[in-house]
C-alpha cells in the first residue's frame, strides 16, 4: 500500500495570523478530487505489461507505482479516462462510480 497523501487545510483566525503578503505555503493535497468522478478506472493487472503508459499520461498524478505495477489513487483520480483510452493492452476499464 503506497503512502497515503494528504494535507491540512489552513484556517486563519485573525489578520495577525495572515502572512504580510499573499503568500501560499499550504499544499492542495487536502483537496480530494476523487469526489469529482462519475466513472472510475479499474486496472486488470493480469493483462498489464508494465509499459508505464497509464502512469505517464495521467494528468492528475493519480496513477502511482506499487510493486512495479500501476495502481489508482482514488483519493485524487478525477475519472477522466485517459488511462483507459491510452492503455495499449486495454486492461483498464472505466466503471460507474460506486455511491
Amino acid at each position, binding site marked *: 500500500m503506497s503512502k497515503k497523501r494528504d494535507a491540512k487545510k489552513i484556517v486563519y483566525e485573525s*489578520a495577525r495570523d495572515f502572512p504580510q*503578503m499573499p503568500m*501560499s505555503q499550504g499544499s492542495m493535497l487536502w483537496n480530494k478530487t476523487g469526489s469529482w468522478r462519475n466513472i472510475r478506472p479499474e486496472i486488470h493487472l493480469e493483462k498489464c505489461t508494465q509499459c508505464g503508459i497509464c502512469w505517464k499520461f495521467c494528468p492528475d498524478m493519480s496513477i502511482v507505482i506499487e510493486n512495479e505495477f500501476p495502481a489508482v489513487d482514488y483519493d485524487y483520480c478525477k475519472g477522466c479516462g485517459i488511462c483507459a483510452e491510452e492503455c495499449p493492452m486495454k486492461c483498464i476499464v472505466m466503471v460507474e462510480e460506486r455511491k
Partner: protein
Amino acid sequence: MRKVIMGNHALSYGAMLSRTQVISAYPITPQTQVVELLSEMCADGTLQAKFIKVESEHSAMAACIGASIAGARTFTATSAQGLALMHELLHWASGGRLPIVMGDINRAMAPGWSIWTDQNDSLSQRDTGWMQFYVSSNQEVIDTTIQAFKIAETIGIPAMVVLDAFALSHTYEVVDIPEQDKVDAYLPPYKPYARLTPDAPCAFDGLTGPEHYFELRYKLQKDMEKVPALFDKTGREFEKIFGRRLEAVEPYLCDDAEIILVTSGTAGFTARVAVDEMRKEGIKIGNLRIRMFRPFPFDDVRRILAKASKIAVLDRNISYGYHGIFCQEVKSALNGSGSSAPVFGFIAGLGGRDIKAASFREIVDIVRRQDKPAEEINWIGVKK
C-alpha cells in the same frame, strides 16, 4: 562630497548609493537623465546592478516586481504617461508588499501632449497603496530616495519619490552627496520578508477569495498607518549619520500665522520667498509644505493648521468634477478636528505654467478679501 547636479541625477545618485541591484526602466522626457546616468554607473561598475532595458513602463514595473520577489533591491523612474501605463502594476507592487522605490517626475498628463510639470500623474495614483514623498530640492531628492528604501524595506510597502519636471528635474543645485560607507551604515542589505527560493517553495499572489482578501488589505492599511512613526524614526537615524533631517511636513513661520499656505513641490519653496516678502509688510502668514502625502500626515496637518484663521491650499493638480487634491485632503483632515478656519482652494501651474512669488500675492489678496471662500476653486494664472 558637494557637487552641482540636476534633480534627475540626484535620483540616480540616490539609487546608486542605496546599492540598488536591479533597475528596469523605459525612457520618457523628462526622466531620461535618471536612467542615462544609472546606465553609465552600471556600465563602469560604479553601481553593481543589472539594468533591464525594457520595452515599456508596464514591463519596467513588471520586471521590478519580479526582481523584488526574487530578493533584490529594485528601482525605477518614470513620468506621466509612463506612470499611467504602470497603473495596474502599481497595485500589484503594493498588494504584493514589495519595497520597490520609484522616482516620478511630475509631468502633465496628455492630451494636450505636454512634457512640463504638474502633479496629476502621481496624484492619480494616490489610491494604489504606494507611499508618496513630494520633494522640493535636489538635496531632498537624494536624501528621500535613500530614506525611502529604508522605510519601504522595513514595512514592505513600495515608495514614490516625486519631483517637478524641469523646475526640479533639470535644475542644477548644490547637493551634498553622502558617502557610500555612511549610506551603508544607514541602509543595510535588503532582507526580504519572503522571496522566491527553491529551498522554501511557495506561491505568491494567487487567486484570493473573499474569505482572505479583506484581511490582506487590512494589513496593508495598518502597516501604512505605521509609516509616520517610521518616517520619524528613520529621519532621526538619518540626521545622526548625515546631519540633515527630513520631516513629513515642513512648517515655515506657522506658529503665529493667521493665514497658512499649504503647498508642495517646488512651489513650496517659492511660497517661502513670498512669505518672507509679505511678513516684511506685517502680514502674519506662514507656509506648510507637505512632503509625505501618502500616508497622509493627519496629525501634523491638524496640529499645525489648528491656530490658523484662514488656510489657502495651492494645488498644481485637479480632480476634475471636484477641486484640487491637496485641498480635498486638507479639508477632510481638518473635518472634526476642531478647526473652523475656512479652507480656500487655489489651482495654478497646470501643464508647467510658472508659479511665481507673485502668484502667492494674488492668493493672499483673495484670502484677505473674503471671510469665507466665495468659490470652490480659485484659478491663478489662467486667462479666463
